[in-house]
């Protein structure tokens, strides 16, 4: 499979819940997630992110995150990973939902990115 989806959240429960929402509309899309610190506290863990990348059946990863520090860990993971990561500064749940629905419908990436554009709400300026 070419594209997979990665969800990175500060909270373990969000990292479990968002994939549940997505799988309902995208049963054939590879979706993995990383949530919370190594101790399952609020935060993110580079190691968990790396595992979620490795476990994802996609060879190119569309990544979605909640808060800025998750983005920084995602970037570190991207620099260390062999797979290509694309990080989207869009609303986490809503953006990932759109991407998953469209991947399931076999829509091409440029079109997906066009539909994600209005959902960009982070990392401005």
């Amino acid at each position, binding site marked *: 499979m070419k594209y997979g989806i990665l969800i990175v959240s500060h909270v373990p429960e969000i990292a479990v819940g968002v994939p549940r929402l997505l799988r*309902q*509309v995208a049963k054939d899309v590879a979706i993995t997630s990383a949530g919370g610190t190594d101790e399952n506290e609020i935060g993110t863990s580079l190691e968990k992110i790396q595992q979620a990348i490795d476990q994802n059946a996609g060879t190119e990863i569309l990544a979605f995150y909640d808060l800025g520090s998750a983005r920084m860990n995602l970037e570190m993971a991207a620099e260390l990973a062999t797979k290509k990561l694309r990080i989207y500064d869009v609303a986490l749940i809503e953006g990932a939902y*759109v991407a998953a*629905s*469209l991947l399931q*419908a076999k*829509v091409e990436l440029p*079109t997906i990115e066009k*539909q994600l554009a209005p959902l960009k709400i982070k990392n401005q300026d």
Partner: protein
Amino acid sequence: MKLTLEKYLNWINEFSQQVIAKKDYLSDLDSKIGDGDHGNNLARGVTAVQQMLTAKQPQDLTAALKLTAMALISKVGGAAGPLYGTAFLEMAKTSSRTTELAELLTSATAGLQKRGQAKAGDKTMVDVWLPVVAALKNGGLTSAVIKKAVVSTKPLEAKRGRASYLGERSIGHLDPGAVSSGYLFEALLTAEDEK
């Protein structure tokens, strides 16, 4: 046509049977452009409606419509719950003023549109309710009118509901809520015929 309690109960029974019979088909339609639960949602809803009506034995049309609304609102679990629920609730409200079916369904459609903000052509159940109401007002609701309305959703691009996330990819599929609304109005015709 005036709606009576008896006619209404026949109508809603007929609709319930249809929904349960077509449950998997409705969910299949929904899996193409949504989350694949529309049939299951509605089947849960109409089952609750039947239980409610049996348990409460409503003595007038207004009470029966209100019980239907409440059962749908609380049991459907998807968009169809507040949508159908609001439609029946608006019918219940209007039924204390008039029992003229065209008027009841006019209120219902207004409620639907207020709740979901969908306009004609947005590829939702509204695309069935609007032409049905128009036909009723002209005294000419037929199976052909209903079928045409349902099929009209196929070439549309969804602008409301989950299917709207698919953009152009929603084109070429029937809207599941339009199909189930088609069953609702076919059930009305059947119930009338039986009378």
